Protein backbone atom coordinates (compact mmCIF):
# COMPACT_ATOMS: atom_id res chain seq x y z
CA UNK A 1 0.00 0.00 0.00
CA UNK A 2 1.27 3.44 -0.92
CA UNK A 3 0.80 5.97 1.82
CA UNK A 4 -0.43 9.50 1.20
CA UNK A 5 2.01 12.24 2.24
CA UNK A 6 2.17 12.46 6.04
CA UNK A 7 0.74 15.98 5.95
CA UNK A 8 -2.59 14.55 4.77
CA UNK A 9 -2.83 12.03 7.60
CA UNK A 10 -4.52 12.81 10.86
CA UNK A 11 -2.76 12.32 14.19
CA UNK A 12 -4.77 9.19 14.84
CA UNK A 13 -3.78 7.68 11.51
CA UNK A 14 -0.13 8.53 12.17
CA UNK A 15 -0.24 6.89 15.57
CA UNK A 16 -2.28 3.95 14.31
CA UNK A 17 -1.11 0.44 13.54
CA UNK A 18 -1.94 0.48 9.81
CA UNK A 19 0.66 0.47 7.04
CA UNK A 20 0.93 4.23 7.22
CA UNK A 21 0.91 4.52 11.01
CA UNK A 22 3.89 4.51 13.33
CA UNK A 23 2.04 2.96 16.25
CA UNK A 24 3.85 -0.36 16.00
CA UNK A 25 7.28 1.36 15.86
CA UNK A 26 6.51 3.44 18.92
CA UNK A 27 5.08 0.55 20.87
CA UNK A 28 8.07 -1.61 19.98
CA UNK A 29 10.39 1.14 21.19
CA UNK A 30 8.31 1.48 24.34
CA UNK A 31 8.61 -2.25 25.04
CA UNK A 32 12.35 -2.06 24.41
CA UNK A 33 12.71 0.88 26.82
CA UNK A 34 10.85 -0.94 29.57
CA UNK A 35 12.82 -4.16 29.09
CA UNK A 36 16.15 -2.29 29.20
CA UNK A 37 14.99 -0.37 32.29
CA UNK A 38 13.92 -3.56 34.08
CA UNK A 39 17.15 -5.36 33.18
CA UNK A 40 19.34 -2.44 34.21
CA UNK A 41 17.39 -1.92 37.41
CA UNK A 42 17.64 -5.58 38.42
CA UNK A 43 21.36 -5.80 37.62
CA UNK A 44 21.90 -2.44 39.32
CA UNK A 45 20.13 -3.80 42.40
CA UNK A 46 22.58 -6.71 42.57
CA UNK A 47 25.48 -4.27 42.31
CA UNK A 48 23.78 -2.04 44.87
CA UNK A 49 23.30 -4.78 47.47
CA UNK A 50 26.88 -6.00 47.03
CA UNK A 51 28.17 -2.44 47.15
CA UNK A 52 26.17 -1.44 50.20
CA UNK A 53 27.36 -4.43 52.20
CA UNK A 54 30.88 -4.00 50.84
CA UNK A 55 30.93 -0.35 51.85
CA UNK A 56 29.66 -1.05 55.36
CA UNK A 57 31.10 -4.43 56.29
CA UNK A 58 33.85 -5.04 53.71
CA UNK A 59 37.58 -4.96 54.28
CA UNK A 60 39.47 -1.65 54.05
CA UNK A 61 40.38 -2.15 50.38
CA UNK A 62 36.83 -3.12 49.39
CA UNK A 63 35.43 -0.11 51.22
CA UNK A 64 37.74 2.26 49.38
CA UNK A 65 37.13 0.69 45.99
CA UNK A 66 33.34 0.92 46.40
CA UNK A 67 33.71 4.59 47.44
CA UNK A 68 35.76 5.31 44.35
CA UNK A 69 33.10 3.61 42.20
CA UNK A 70 30.15 5.51 43.66
CA UNK A 71 31.97 8.85 43.67
CA UNK A 72 33.21 8.51 40.10
CA UNK A 73 29.89 7.39 38.66
CA UNK A 74 27.93 10.09 40.41
CA UNK A 75 30.30 12.88 39.34
CA UNK A 76 30.51 12.03 35.64
CA UNK A 77 27.50 12.51 33.32
CA UNK A 78 25.64 9.30 32.48
CA UNK A 79 26.10 10.02 28.79
CA UNK A 80 29.90 10.07 29.10
CA UNK A 81 29.96 6.86 31.16
CA UNK A 82 27.66 5.18 28.66
CA UNK A 83 29.86 6.15 25.77
CA UNK A 84 33.00 4.84 27.52
CA UNK A 85 31.31 1.58 28.50
CA UNK A 86 29.65 1.24 25.12
CA UNK A 87 33.11 0.76 23.65
CA UNK A 88 34.84 -0.74 26.66
CA UNK A 89 32.38 -3.52 27.58
CA UNK A 90 32.29 -5.37 24.22
CA UNK A 91 36.03 -4.79 23.67
CA UNK A 92 36.94 -6.02 27.13
CA UNK A 93 34.68 -9.04 26.85
CA UNK A 94 36.11 -10.02 23.49
CA UNK A 95 39.67 -9.67 24.74
CA UNK A 96 38.76 -11.90 27.65
CA UNK A 97 37.16 -14.44 25.32
CA UNK A 98 40.11 -14.49 22.94
CA UNK A 99 42.59 -14.72 25.81
CA UNK A 100 40.78 -17.75 27.17
CA UNK A 101 40.62 -19.40 23.76
CA UNK A 102 37.09 -18.64 22.57
CA UNK A 103 35.96 -16.80 19.46
CA UNK A 104 34.91 -13.19 19.61
CA UNK A 105 31.21 -12.44 19.76
CA UNK A 106 29.04 -9.50 18.82
CA UNK A 107 27.32 -8.45 21.99
CA UNK A 108 23.62 -7.75 21.30
CA UNK A 109 22.71 -4.06 21.61
CA UNK A 110 20.18 -4.91 24.26
CA UNK A 111 22.73 -6.50 26.60
CA UNK A 112 25.23 -3.66 26.16
CA UNK A 113 22.47 -1.19 26.98
CA UNK A 114 21.46 -3.08 30.10
CA UNK A 115 25.04 -3.45 31.38
CA UNK A 116 25.88 0.18 30.71
CA UNK A 117 22.77 1.50 32.50
CA UNK A 118 23.17 -1.00 35.34
CA UNK A 119 26.68 0.26 35.99
CA UNK A 120 25.25 3.75 36.57
CA UNK A 121 22.21 2.51 38.51
CA UNK A 122 24.44 0.36 40.72
CA UNK A 123 26.29 3.36 42.10
CA UNK A 124 23.12 5.21 43.07
CA UNK A 125 21.48 2.06 44.47
CA UNK A 126 24.59 1.38 46.56
CA UNK A 127 24.15 4.75 48.25
CA UNK A 128 20.41 4.35 48.79
CA UNK A 129 20.79 0.85 50.22
CA UNK A 130 23.74 1.86 52.39
CA UNK A 131 21.65 4.64 53.90
CA UNK A 132 18.79 2.21 54.46
CA UNK A 133 21.03 -0.29 56.24
CA UNK A 134 22.49 2.45 58.42
CA UNK A 135 18.95 3.40 59.45
CA UNK A 136 18.37 -0.08 60.90
CA UNK A 137 18.82 0.31 64.68
CA UNK A 138 22.28 -0.94 65.51
CA UNK A 139 21.10 -2.82 68.58
CA UNK A 140 19.08 -5.12 66.32
CA UNK A 141 22.17 -6.20 64.43
CA UNK A 142 24.23 -6.56 67.61
CA UNK A 143 21.49 -8.64 69.19
CA UNK A 144 21.37 -10.92 66.17
CA UNK A 145 25.13 -11.36 66.30
CA UNK A 146 24.99 -12.01 70.02
CA UNK A 147 22.47 -14.77 69.35
CA UNK A 148 25.18 -16.39 67.24
CA UNK A 149 23.63 -15.77 63.83
CA UNK A 150 25.92 -16.16 60.83
CA UNK A 151 26.46 -12.97 58.74
CA UNK A 152 24.18 -14.31 55.98
CA UNK A 153 21.47 -15.01 58.50
CA UNK A 154 21.79 -11.56 60.03
CA UNK A 155 21.40 -10.03 56.59
CA UNK A 156 18.45 -12.20 55.60
CA UNK A 157 16.50 -12.25 58.85
CA UNK A 158 17.30 -8.91 60.49
CA UNK A 159 18.76 -6.35 58.10
CA UNK A 160 16.72 -6.97 54.93
CA UNK A 161 13.25 -6.95 56.52
CA UNK A 162 13.98 -3.78 58.45
CA UNK A 163 15.79 -1.85 55.75
CA UNK A 164 13.14 -2.43 53.09
CA UNK A 165 10.87 0.33 54.33
CA UNK A 166 13.76 2.82 54.44
CA UNK A 167 15.01 1.86 51.00
CA UNK A 168 11.71 1.86 49.09
CA UNK A 169 11.32 5.66 48.51
CA UNK A 170 14.91 6.00 47.25
CA UNK A 171 14.68 2.87 45.15
CA UNK A 172 11.40 4.16 43.70
CA UNK A 173 13.08 7.37 42.57
CA UNK A 174 15.91 5.36 41.05
CA UNK A 175 13.44 3.20 39.12
CA UNK A 176 11.92 6.40 37.67
CA UNK A 177 15.46 7.50 36.77
CA UNK A 178 16.12 4.14 35.12
CA UNK A 179 13.08 4.47 32.87
CA UNK A 180 14.06 8.01 31.90
CA UNK A 181 17.74 7.17 31.49
CA UNK A 182 16.88 4.65 28.77
CA UNK A 183 16.23 7.75 26.65
CA UNK A 184 19.95 8.55 26.82
CA UNK A 185 20.66 5.35 24.92
CA UNK A 186 19.01 7.05 21.92
CA UNK A 187 22.07 9.30 21.69
CA UNK A 188 24.36 6.33 21.12
CA UNK A 189 21.95 4.84 18.60
CA UNK A 190 19.82 2.33 20.48
CA UNK A 191 16.33 1.81 19.16
CA UNK A 192 14.10 2.58 22.10
CA UNK A 193 11.13 4.88 22.58
CA UNK A 194 12.94 8.21 22.24
CA UNK A 195 14.81 7.10 19.13
CA UNK A 196 11.61 5.70 17.60
CA UNK A 197 9.85 9.00 18.32
CA UNK A 198 12.70 10.93 16.74
CA UNK A 199 12.59 8.79 13.60
CA UNK A 200 8.81 8.91 13.30
CA UNK A 201 8.64 12.67 13.75
CA UNK A 202 11.63 13.42 11.53
CA UNK A 203 10.05 11.41 8.70
CA UNK A 204 6.52 12.78 8.99
CA UNK A 205 7.25 16.24 10.47
CA UNK A 206 4.35 15.59 12.84
CA UNK A 207 6.38 16.62 15.89
CA UNK A 208 3.37 17.58 17.97
CA UNK A 209 1.75 14.21 17.41
CA UNK A 210 4.62 11.90 18.25
CA UNK A 211 6.40 13.72 21.06
CA UNK A 212 3.30 14.22 23.23
CA UNK A 213 2.31 10.60 22.55
CA UNK A 214 5.72 9.29 23.64
CA UNK A 215 5.80 11.63 26.63
CA UNK A 216 2.41 10.30 27.64
CA UNK A 217 3.88 6.78 27.54
CA UNK A 218 6.80 7.77 29.80
CA UNK A 219 4.39 9.62 32.06
CA UNK A 220 2.18 6.54 32.25
CA UNK A 221 5.08 4.41 33.50
CA UNK A 222 6.01 7.11 36.02
CA UNK A 223 2.50 7.44 37.40
CA UNK A 224 1.97 3.68 37.62
CA UNK A 225 5.38 3.28 39.28
CA UNK A 226 4.72 6.05 41.80
CA UNK A 227 1.46 4.34 42.71
CA UNK A 228 3.09 0.91 42.89
CA UNK A 229 5.99 2.07 45.05
CA UNK A 230 3.59 3.83 47.41
CA UNK A 231 1.79 0.49 47.84
CA UNK A 232 5.07 -1.33 48.37
CA UNK A 233 6.16 1.19 50.98
CA UNK A 234 2.84 0.79 52.78
CA UNK A 235 3.37 -2.97 52.74
CA UNK A 236 6.96 -2.65 53.95
CA UNK A 237 5.95 -0.33 56.77
CA UNK A 238 3.22 -2.53 58.14
CA UNK A 239 3.91 -3.21 61.78
CA UNK A 240 5.87 0.01 62.08
CA UNK A 241 4.47 2.74 64.25
CA UNK A 242 3.08 5.67 62.30
CA UNK A 243 5.14 8.78 62.99
CA UNK A 244 2.05 10.96 62.96
CA UNK A 245 0.70 8.99 65.90
Amino acid at each position, binding site marked *: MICPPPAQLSSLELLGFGDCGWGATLLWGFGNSILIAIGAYALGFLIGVTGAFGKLYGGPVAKDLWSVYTTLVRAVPELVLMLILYYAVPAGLNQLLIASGYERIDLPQFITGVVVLAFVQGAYQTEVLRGAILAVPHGQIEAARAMGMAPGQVARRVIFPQMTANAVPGLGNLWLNATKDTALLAVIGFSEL*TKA*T*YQASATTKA*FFTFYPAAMAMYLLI*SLISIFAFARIEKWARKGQRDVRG
Partner: protein
Amino acid sequence: MQSFLKPHRIVLIALALAAVAAAVVWGRWEWLGESKYQILILKGIWLSIWLTTVTMVVGMCLAIPIGLAQAVGPWYLALPARIYCTIIRGTPLLMQIWLLYYGLGSLFPGTWVQKSDLWPLLRQAWPYAVVALSLSVAGYEGEVMRGAFRGVPHGQLEAAKAMGMPRFTLFRRIWLPQALNRVLPTIGGETVLQLKSTPLVSTITIMEIYAVAGRIRQDTFIVYEPLFLLAIIYMAIAGLIVFMFRWLESRTPQRTA
Protein backbone atom coordinates in the same frame (compact mmCIF):
# COMPACT_ATOMS: atom_id res chain seq x y z
CA MET B 1 46.04 13.04 57.47
CA GLN B 2 47.12 10.07 59.56
CA SER B 3 43.64 8.53 59.33
CA PHE B 4 43.56 8.97 55.56
CA LEU B 5 46.98 7.56 54.69
CA LYS B 6 46.61 3.98 55.82
CA PRO B 7 49.01 1.43 54.30
CA HIS B 8 46.43 -0.07 51.93
CA ARG B 9 45.45 3.42 50.75
CA ILE B 10 49.04 4.23 49.86
CA VAL B 11 49.13 1.07 47.73
CA LEU B 12 45.80 1.98 46.08
CA ILE B 13 46.96 5.53 45.37
CA ALA B 14 50.20 4.20 43.92
CA LEU B 15 48.23 1.83 41.68
CA ALA B 16 45.96 4.67 40.56
CA LEU B 17 48.95 6.88 39.81
CA ALA B 18 50.54 4.04 37.85
CA ALA B 19 47.34 3.67 35.80
CA VAL B 20 47.28 7.40 35.11
CA ALA B 21 50.97 7.34 34.15
CA ALA B 22 50.36 4.38 31.82
CA ALA B 23 47.45 6.25 30.21
CA VAL B 24 49.63 9.34 29.76
CA VAL B 25 52.62 7.42 28.35
CA TRP B 26 50.86 4.89 26.14
CA GLY B 27 47.70 6.82 25.34
CA ARG B 28 47.40 9.03 22.29
CA TRP B 29 47.30 12.61 23.48
CA GLU B 30 48.96 14.43 20.59
CA TRP B 31 45.67 16.19 19.74
CA LEU B 32 45.94 18.05 23.06
CA GLY B 33 48.88 19.97 21.62
CA GLU B 34 46.94 21.35 18.64
CA SER B 35 45.82 24.92 19.26
CA LYS B 36 42.64 24.33 17.25
CA TYR B 37 41.48 21.75 19.77
CA GLN B 38 42.77 23.70 22.77
CA ILE B 39 40.54 26.64 21.84
CA LEU B 40 37.56 24.33 21.24
CA ILE B 41 38.07 22.62 24.60
CA LEU B 42 38.32 25.89 26.52
CA LYS B 43 35.26 27.27 24.76
CA GLY B 44 33.42 24.02 25.44
CA ILE B 45 34.21 24.08 29.15
CA TRP B 46 33.10 27.70 29.36
CA LEU B 47 29.84 26.91 27.54
CA SER B 48 29.09 23.98 29.85
CA ILE B 49 29.63 26.13 32.94
CA TRP B 50 27.65 28.99 31.41
CA LEU B 51 24.72 26.71 30.56
CA THR B 52 24.69 25.19 34.05
CA THR B 53 24.80 28.59 35.77
CA VAL B 54 22.30 30.42 33.57
CA THR B 55 19.74 27.61 33.50
CA MET B 56 20.03 27.09 37.26
CA VAL B 57 19.42 30.80 37.92
CA VAL B 58 16.55 31.14 35.43
CA GLY B 59 15.09 27.82 36.58
CA MET B 60 15.21 28.80 40.25
CA CYS B 61 13.47 32.11 39.46
CA LEU B 62 10.66 30.06 37.88
CA ALA B 63 10.72 27.44 40.62
CA ILE B 64 10.00 29.93 43.42
CA PRO B 65 6.52 30.91 42.14
CA ILE B 66 5.82 27.30 41.17
CA GLY B 67 6.76 26.07 44.63
CA LEU B 68 4.78 28.84 46.28
CA ALA B 69 1.72 28.06 44.16
CA GLN B 70 1.92 24.40 45.16
CA ALA B 71 2.56 25.09 48.83
CA VAL B 72 -0.01 27.77 49.64
CA GLY B 73 -1.68 28.77 46.36
CA PRO B 74 -5.39 28.41 45.58
CA TRP B 75 -6.31 25.27 43.66
CA TYR B 76 -6.40 27.01 40.26
CA LEU B 77 -2.71 27.86 40.68
CA ALA B 78 -1.66 24.76 42.62
CA LEU B 79 -3.14 22.30 40.14
CA PRO B 80 -1.39 23.63 37.00
CA ALA B 81 1.89 23.88 38.93
CA ARG B 82 1.46 20.31 40.11
CA ILE B 83 0.71 19.05 36.58
CA TYR B 84 3.67 20.98 35.21
CA CYS B 85 6.06 19.41 37.74
CA THR B 86 4.68 15.94 37.10
CA ILE B 87 5.12 16.25 33.35
CA ILE B 88 8.66 17.64 33.56
CA ARG B 89 9.73 15.07 36.14
CA GLY B 90 7.96 12.20 34.43
CA THR B 91 9.44 12.53 30.95
CA PRO B 92 13.06 12.33 29.79
CA LEU B 93 14.89 15.64 29.46
CA LEU B 94 16.25 14.56 26.08
CA MET B 95 12.70 14.31 24.77
CA GLN B 96 11.82 17.77 26.12
CA ILE B 97 14.87 19.24 24.41
CA TRP B 98 14.03 17.59 21.10
CA LEU B 99 10.38 18.60 21.31
CA LEU B 100 11.38 22.23 21.78
CA TYR B 101 14.15 22.30 19.20
CA TYR B 102 12.72 20.16 16.42
CA GLY B 103 9.02 20.65 17.18
CA LEU B 104 8.76 24.29 18.22
CA GLY B 105 11.63 25.21 15.92
CA SER B 106 9.77 23.76 12.92
CA LEU B 107 6.75 25.99 13.52
CA PHE B 108 8.52 29.31 12.98
CA PRO B 109 9.81 29.27 9.37
CA GLY B 110 7.25 30.75 6.99
CA THR B 111 5.31 32.62 9.65
CA TRP B 112 5.53 36.19 10.88
CA VAL B 113 8.29 35.12 13.25
CA GLN B 114 10.69 34.67 10.35
CA LYS B 115 10.32 38.34 9.43
CA SER B 116 10.48 39.61 13.00
CA ASP B 117 13.52 40.78 14.93
CA LEU B 118 13.43 37.61 16.99
CA TRP B 119 14.37 35.42 14.06
CA PRO B 120 18.16 35.77 14.26
CA LEU B 121 17.83 34.52 17.84
CA LEU B 122 15.32 31.74 17.18
CA ARG B 123 17.32 30.48 14.23
CA GLN B 124 20.10 29.39 16.56
CA ALA B 125 20.08 26.37 18.82
CA TRP B 126 21.18 27.84 22.13
CA PRO B 127 17.91 29.64 23.03
CA TYR B 128 16.11 26.29 22.78
CA ALA B 129 18.78 24.65 24.92
CA VAL B 130 18.55 27.36 27.59
CA VAL B 131 14.74 27.27 27.61
CA ALA B 132 14.55 23.47 27.76
CA LEU B 133 17.15 23.15 30.54
CA SER B 134 15.61 26.02 32.55
CA LEU B 135 12.11 24.56 32.30
CA SER B 136 13.49 21.26 33.53
CA VAL B 137 15.16 22.94 36.54
CA ALA B 138 11.90 24.77 37.25
CA GLY B 139 10.01 21.47 37.33
CA TYR B 140 12.40 19.67 39.67
CA GLU B 141 13.16 22.65 41.89
CA GLY B 142 9.49 23.66 42.02
CA GLU B 143 8.89 20.44 43.89
CA VAL B 144 11.88 21.10 46.20
CA MET B 145 10.71 24.66 46.90
CA ARG B 146 7.20 23.43 47.71
CA GLY B 147 8.63 21.47 50.62
CA ALA B 148 10.93 24.33 51.57
CA PHE B 149 8.13 26.90 51.80
CA ARG B 150 6.04 24.49 53.86
CA GLY B 151 9.00 23.79 56.15
CA VAL B 152 9.47 27.36 57.39
CA PRO B 153 8.13 27.41 60.98
CA HIS B 154 4.68 28.93 61.12
CA GLY B 155 5.58 31.07 64.12
CA GLN B 156 8.08 33.01 62.01
CA LEU B 157 5.38 34.03 59.55
CA GLU B 158 2.93 34.83 62.33
CA ALA B 159 5.51 36.95 64.14
CA ALA B 160 6.21 38.88 60.93
CA LYS B 161 2.48 39.43 60.40
CA ALA B 162 2.11 40.57 63.97
CA MET B 163 4.90 43.09 63.40
CA GLY B 164 2.72 44.55 60.68
CA MET B 165 4.88 43.51 57.75
CA PRO B 166 3.24 43.84 54.35
CA ARG B 167 2.86 40.46 52.59
CA PHE B 168 5.57 41.08 50.06
CA THR B 169 8.10 42.23 52.65
CA LEU B 170 7.25 39.18 54.73
CA PHE B 171 7.95 37.00 51.73
CA ARG B 172 11.17 38.79 50.82
CA ARG B 173 12.64 39.11 54.33
CA ILE B 174 11.37 36.07 56.22
CA TRP B 175 9.80 33.37 54.12
CA LEU B 176 12.03 33.17 51.05
CA PRO B 177 15.43 33.48 52.82
CA GLN B 178 14.55 30.78 55.34
CA ALA B 179 13.16 28.49 52.65
CA LEU B 180 16.26 28.93 50.48
CA ASN B 181 18.52 28.43 53.48
CA ARG B 182 16.85 25.10 54.18
CA VAL B 183 17.31 23.71 50.68
CA LEU B 184 20.80 25.03 50.00
CA PRO B 185 22.39 21.55 50.25
CA THR B 186 19.69 20.11 47.99
CA ILE B 187 20.22 22.87 45.43
CA GLY B 188 23.94 22.11 45.47
CA GLY B 189 23.26 18.49 44.59
CA GLU B 190 20.78 19.54 41.92
CA THR B 191 23.36 21.87 40.38
CA VAL B 192 25.72 18.93 39.93
CA LEU B 193 22.85 16.99 38.35
CA GLN B 194 22.18 19.95 36.08
CA LEU B 195 25.83 20.00 35.01
CA LYS B 196 25.47 16.32 34.18
CA SER B 197 22.41 17.09 32.06
CA THR B 198 24.13 19.66 29.87
CA PRO B 199 25.75 17.09 27.52
CA LEU B 200 22.24 16.35 26.24
CA VAL B 201 22.14 19.66 24.38
CA SER B 202 25.06 18.50 22.25
CA THR B 203 22.39 16.57 20.32
CA ILE B 204 20.97 19.87 19.09
CA THR B 205 24.33 21.11 17.75
CA ILE B 206 25.51 23.08 20.81
CA MET B 207 29.30 22.85 20.98
CA GLU B 208 29.74 22.39 24.71
CA ILE B 209 32.51 20.20 26.06
CA TYR B 210 30.79 16.89 25.35
CA ALA B 211 30.24 17.86 21.73
CA VAL B 212 33.86 19.04 21.50
CA ALA B 213 35.08 15.63 22.68
CA GLY B 214 32.83 14.00 20.09
CA ARG B 215 34.27 16.22 17.39
CA ILE B 216 37.86 15.36 18.42
CA ARG B 217 36.99 11.66 18.37
CA GLN B 218 35.55 11.99 14.88
CA ASP B 219 38.53 13.92 13.58
CA THR B 220 41.25 11.74 15.08
CA PHE B 221 39.57 8.30 15.29
CA ILE B 222 40.76 8.04 18.91
CA VAL B 223 38.15 6.18 20.98
CA TYR B 224 38.96 6.52 24.67
CA GLU B 225 41.35 9.37 25.41
CA PRO B 226 38.98 12.29 24.69
CA LEU B 227 36.33 10.53 26.79
CA PHE B 228 38.75 10.20 29.72
CA LEU B 229 39.59 13.89 29.46
CA LEU B 230 35.85 14.59 29.38
CA ALA B 231 35.26 12.56 32.54
CA ILE B 232 38.07 14.40 34.33
CA ILE B 233 36.74 17.80 33.24
CA TYR B 234 33.24 17.00 34.48
CA MET B 235 34.61 15.72 37.78
CA ALA B 236 36.61 18.92 38.22
CA ILE B 237 33.58 21.13 37.52
CA ALA B 238 31.40 19.00 39.81
CA GLY B 239 34.02 19.30 42.55
CA LEU B 240 34.07 23.06 42.06
CA ILE B 241 30.26 23.24 42.43
CA VAL B 242 30.32 21.13 45.60
CA PHE B 243 33.08 23.31 47.02
CA MET B 244 31.21 26.52 46.20
CA PHE B 245 28.02 25.33 47.85
CA ARG B 246 29.95 24.23 50.96
CA TRP B 247 31.37 27.72 51.16
CA LEU B 248 27.89 29.24 50.72
CA GLU B 249 26.52 26.98 53.43
CA SER B 250 29.31 27.92 55.82
CA ARG B 251 28.43 31.59 55.30
CA THR B 252 24.74 31.27 56.08
CA PRO B 253 23.92 31.19 59.78
CA GLN B 254 22.80 27.75 60.93
CA ARG B 255 21.06 27.10 64.18
CA THR B 256 21.96 23.67 65.35
CA ALA B 257 19.67 22.29 68.04
